């Protein structure tokens, strides 16, 4: 066995647990998970069947943790995994899986296939079977601070501009603030309006907040690539800053996997519960709405639909807030058939959007077909979402298909219509 394969099996041996064993033993090869996966529904290629994407993991489980599997391996009935195979699976595990979690909701025997893929990525990552794009993003996050290589001076610059345009101060490194606001690189670069919107809302509600100069980045490429050790390093920056500044809450931005990383994976990565609470910005806004502190001066008139980002809604548990907020600000909100936890992925989650090979980009464009049909069926020109990654992936696709759909961030939309 090569050194890298040795690493793969060692790592997978660490991560395989009772749920994974139970899931593999329960699978009856019914193939229904394929119907839940947009990479299958849009391509019709059976290799994108979710459970097939974890086949090497199954074999490691079988060969390492079942007596019969060990015997099968001995007599050659169960082939050991190979490097070539993992090379082949790289596309299935990264390019064509966004960890969207739809299959986990549909599997009739109850398998959480997304969980299995997340674990399988641990093994893929340690042996370097990862797409260059995600590897690069991870390196930049660890070495520079963010997946896009953004450094604090650039962020400070954006903040300054926001202060200028809003006329409000945006506190930095202020100990004792209620909220530590996190951002995602994409927002900083592509949607700085989010920062302005947030500043306005905080000031209006009279709630104190701060940014941390050493922990502004909420995203965590470590969990996307599937390297928990690296993810821990990244998430620790936020935990350290939040606990140093003694904030009560950490505000997770409009970014899907960032929420999963900080809210759900974080405590498990650092091995202890937090001394603060993690709140998603929509939960925060919905809290204000419920208290009557979120008054609109007018409403967005044009018909629109909502895109629920997988990691915030289906995998994150922020189920009710988005619709409640959109109804607050939109006059003509049209619910789609598969919404909330049943929503279809944008096609670029779980790190996929960082993969820039031609094949991956073509596949993403194809996978967007399901969203395209949703937009067309609703007959709208506006789609609102609350994940910067979803937004950029879908904008690319909309360009690709030359559609005239406009994408808006929910927080930004709310801020625009907020009572002065």
């Amino acid at each position: 066995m090569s050194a890298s394969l040795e690493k793969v099996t060692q790592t997978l041996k660490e991560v395989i647990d009772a749920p994974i064993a139970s899931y593999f033993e329960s699978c009856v090869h019914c193939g229904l998970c394929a119907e839940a996966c947009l990479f299958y529904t849009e391509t019709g290629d059976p290799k994108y069947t979710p459970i097939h994407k974890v086949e090497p993991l199954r074999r490691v489980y079988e060969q390492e943790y079942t007596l019969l599997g060990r015997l099968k391996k001995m007599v050659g009935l169960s082939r050991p995994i190979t490097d070539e195979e993992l090379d082949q699976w790289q596309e299935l595990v990264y390019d064509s899986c966004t960890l969207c979690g739809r299959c986990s909701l549909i599997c009739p025997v109850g398998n959480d296939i997304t969980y299995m893929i997340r674990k399988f990525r641990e093994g893929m990552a340690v042996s370097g079977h990862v797409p260059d794009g995600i590897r690069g993003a991870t390196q930049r996050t660890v070495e520079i601070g963010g997946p896009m290589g953004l450094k604090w001076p650039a962020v400070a610059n954006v903040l300054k501009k926001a202060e200028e345009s809003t006329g409000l101060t945006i506190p930095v490194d202020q100990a004792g603030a209620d909220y530590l606001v996190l951002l995602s690189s994409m927002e900083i670069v592509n949607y700085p309006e989010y920062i302005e919107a947030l500043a306005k809302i905080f000031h209006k509600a009279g709630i104190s907040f701060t940014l941390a100069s050493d922990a502004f980045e909420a995203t965590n490429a470590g969990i996307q690539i599937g390297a928990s050790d690296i993810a821990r390093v990244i998430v620790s920056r936020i935990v350290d800053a939040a606990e140093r500044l003694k904030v009560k809450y950490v505000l997770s931005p409009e970014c899907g996997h960032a929420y999963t990383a900080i809210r759900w994976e974080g405590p498990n990565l650092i091995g202890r519960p937090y001394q603060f609470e993690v709140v998603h910005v929509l939960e925060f806004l919905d809290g204000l709405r419920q208290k009557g502190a979120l008054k609109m001066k007018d409403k967005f008139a044009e018909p629109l639909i909502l895109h629920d980002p997988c990691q915030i809604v289906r995998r994150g548990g922020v189920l009710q807030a988005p619709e409640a907020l959109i109804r607050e600000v939109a006059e003509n909100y049209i619910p789609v058939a598969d919404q909330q936890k049943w929503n279809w992925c944008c096609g670029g989650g779980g790190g996929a959007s960082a993969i820039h090979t031609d094949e991956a980009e073509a596949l993403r464009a194809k996978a967007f077909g399901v969203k395209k049909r949703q937009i067309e069926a609703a007959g709208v020109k506006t789609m609102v979402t609350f994940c910067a990654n979803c937004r950029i992936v879908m904008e690319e696709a909309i360009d690709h298909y030359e559609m005239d759909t406009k994408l808006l961030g929910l927080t930004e939309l709310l801020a625009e219509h907020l009572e002065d």
Partner: protein
Amino acid sequence: MNELQFLTWVRGPGLDLAVGLFLLGMAWRLFEIYSLGRKQDLAAPRHAAGASGLHTVFRRSMPPPGMLKRSPVSYLGGYIFHIGLVVVVFGFAPHILLIRNLTGLSWPGLPSQFVDLAAVVTMAAMVVVLVDRINKPVKRFLSTFEDWFTWMVTFLPVLTGWMAVQHLLLPYTTMLALHILSVEVLLVVLPFTKLLHVFTLFGSRWFNGKANAHKGVPV
């Protein structure tokens, strides 16, 4: 060995052996699977109505929205043959007698004509499901020897049982013996094939339901 001796063997030593291997396999496999343990989730939980392991154990028995339309054969065929199997296995008076004999539990049987009909419907559904497995690219792609084998191992007891009752092909005694033998084969292979899902699906649903309930998502 004549057929009555064959029948007596499958009713006696054969059954003893099969039940023994089944229990051995089940204990072994369940320990093997569930002893791997899992980490406690340290993230602060979010509570939501209808989100728990137990909820998911039950909820997963219903088709998720839209899926019935997407894969009608899988769902309808699956429902019919699973429910049919339950009716035939637990509704036929001689089966209940066996269960009473082994466990002391008993309940009233269903009319044999109804069980007979259920057996035919079950077999028809199983054939449809098999054809679907051959026809659907995904199912065919996923299928291994085990899938065909377990289909056969599940189908044969229904077929032989029905043929025994209907007096088809072979004398009743031989058919009954073959029926019992096929059930014994089923019992022996169950713990070591995907048929184990009969038991592990509860664990799987519960794990999935619990993990997602921790995040406040009823799945």
